[in-house]
């Protein structure tokens, strides 16, 4: 596999360069190579060739990153689970993927009772060996799980071919070139697909990534890294700068060369102010869902020359190499320019389909023949967009009840499902996204009832869903407002949540 080979070459070429900075400790590519080799040998010695999906507990350490590369060199996929996510949800993920083996760098793994656990932190020395095994392109490289409407997380498998296509597309882009001296922010959980671009591209270029220790106040730690480590490349979700906005006047970071946004709508007013803090920086507004291997295209925002937006949301621009954007109506027929419809994505980065979910796959994917008679398979993103006269795509809103919380996709229906399951009172509950004064979305739970104690419901939800999915605000409303056609009026319901 081409990109795995390139990773090998980069690691071997940049041995003296720093690869990772974790909790103020620097690790060189040489140390990284040793760690990868140790883990890879352990995998080869202990995991059967037929076992392709391997669990990975995403601690913030050298071993966890090395495990990803070790698995790829061995032609296997990682199934990441976050140690702070409820155990029950993680075990569900391992059940769904029939994972038997788990790599865990924790001192005492909580999985060792029911799974075969490889402890990646206590392996003996071995020779460096980074030559990849042969792997077929349609084999899976990782599976990530996102929120699902029925209470079950939804698996998105991404193949080696998918990643290879992503690497090819970014390589084609002349505006974005990492060099070995770059210091890159890696602020994402490894269970979040945005993390793939924040470790993969730096490793391919011999650059160094800087992670955020678990438990640190993310926003201030990022600023600390920018200031003290003089980061040159930032990849972030827009909510980060929303929270830092009150302090923009104190931020001046001339070393930053690139700042890429993704995982949520970027607003043009804040983009302009942020760009004032980074005087020598190119800003990219990336678009792309997990189902299409992180990125599918971008808009090169520039406060002077490129400020295209719709209702204040910066344009998502054009598709990258080999990717096709199609905007369709309810019958999956292409609509005209300037007409809003659902954005669909086609090309080599498209996932083979949701993990063991025939029903969902029938809804979310379709095949169409283009004018040259070529069959293209499309993924329906659920994002409403239109294409303007110049060929740029602009984001309008969502077609369903999926919301973004700090970059994470959340199905409001999943929250309602878990809240109602545990409630003894059978009352109506609606989960809502509410915008706080800094412009970020927070979750609220509206309950149609007299006030009652929700502690048990919340304790239950905390065992079922990751922290970002737990509503931060609760309101009891005696009778929900309804629109004229009898539906619950969500817009009106939001006004009950006056939050600061």
């Amino acid at each position: 596999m081409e990109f795995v080979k390139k990773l090998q070459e980069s690691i071997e070429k940049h041995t003296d360069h720093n690869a990772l900075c974790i909790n103020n400790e620097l690790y060189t590519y040489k140390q990284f190579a040793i760690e990868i080799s140790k883990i890879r040998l352990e995998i080869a010695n202990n995991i059967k060739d037929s076992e392709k999906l391997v669990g990975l507990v995403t601690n913030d350490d050298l071993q966890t990153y090395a495990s990803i590369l070790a698995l790829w060199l061995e032609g296997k996929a990682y199934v990441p689970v976050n140690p702070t996510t409820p155990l029950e949800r993680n075990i569900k993920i391992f059940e769904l993927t029939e994972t038997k083996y788990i790599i865990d760098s924790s001192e005492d793994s909580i999985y060792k009772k029911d799974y075969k656990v490889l402890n990646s932190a206590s392996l003996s020395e071995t020779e460096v060996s980074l030559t990849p095994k042969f792997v077929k392109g349609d084999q899976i490289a990782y599976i990530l799980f996102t929120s699902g409407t029925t209470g079950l997380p939804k698996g998105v498998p991404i193949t080696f071919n998918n990643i290879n296509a992503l690497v090819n597309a970014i390589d084609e882009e002349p505006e974005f070139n990492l060099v070995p001296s770059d210091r890159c922010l890696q602020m994402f959980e490894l269970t979040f697909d945005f993390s793939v671009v924040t470790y993969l591209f730096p490793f391919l270029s011999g650059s160094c990534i800087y992670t955020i220790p678990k438990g640190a106040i993310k926003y201030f730690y990022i600023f600390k890294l920018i200031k003290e480590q003089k980061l040159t490349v930032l990849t972030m979700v827009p909510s980060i700068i929303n929270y830092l906005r009150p302090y923009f006047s104190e931020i001046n970071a001339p070393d930053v060369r690139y700042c890429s946004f993704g995982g949520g709508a970027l607003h043009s007013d804040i983009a302009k102010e942020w760009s004032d803090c980074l005087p020598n920086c190119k800003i990219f507004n990336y678009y792309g869902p997990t189902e299409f291997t992180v990125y599918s295209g971008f808009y090169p925002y520039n406060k002077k020359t490129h400020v295209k937006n719709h209702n204040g949301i910066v344009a998502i621009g054009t598709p990258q190499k080999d990717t096709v954007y199609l905007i369709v109506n309810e019958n999956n027929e292409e609509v005209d320019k300037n007409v809003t419809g659902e954005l669909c994505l086609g090309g080599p980065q498209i996932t083979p389909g949701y993990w063991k979910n025939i029903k969902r796959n029938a809804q979310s994917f379709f095949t169409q023949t283009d004018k040259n008679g070529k069959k293209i398979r499309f993924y329906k993103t659920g994002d409403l967009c239109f294409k303007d006269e110049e060929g740029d795509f602009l984001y309008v809103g969502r077609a369903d009840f999926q919301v973004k919380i700090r970059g994470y996709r959340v199905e409001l229906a999943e929250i309602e499902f878990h809240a109602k399951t545990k409630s003894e009172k059978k009352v109506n509950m609606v989960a809502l996204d509410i915008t706080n004064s800094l412009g970020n979305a927070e979750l609220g739970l509206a309950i149609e009832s007299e006030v009652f104690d929700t502690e048990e419901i919340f304790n239950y939800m905390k065992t079922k869903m990751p922290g970002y999915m737990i509503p931060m605000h609760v309101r009891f409303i005696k009778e929900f407002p309804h629109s004229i056609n009898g539906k619950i009026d969500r817009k009106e319901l939001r006004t009950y949540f006056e939050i600061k």
Partner: protein
Amino acid sequence: MNKEEIFSKIKEAFITVLEHDNFQLKEETTAEDVDGWESITHMMIITEIEKSFGIKFKLMDLMNMNNVGDLVRTIEAEL
């Protein structure tokens, strides 16, 4: 304003943001000791404290704040 008053005002800010009062604030209290105190709520608590004390923190101070004691000292310096 004495320390006690500062502590009590800080506690109010925590309650407003976290929507519960199931915690004790001491000098050595950190985010790990209080349910719901994490990156996001921290930002909201900071904003709430700025409002109630009528002060504006500096990013440099916020960057090196590790526990409630640090928070109190920064507030004292600003008052």
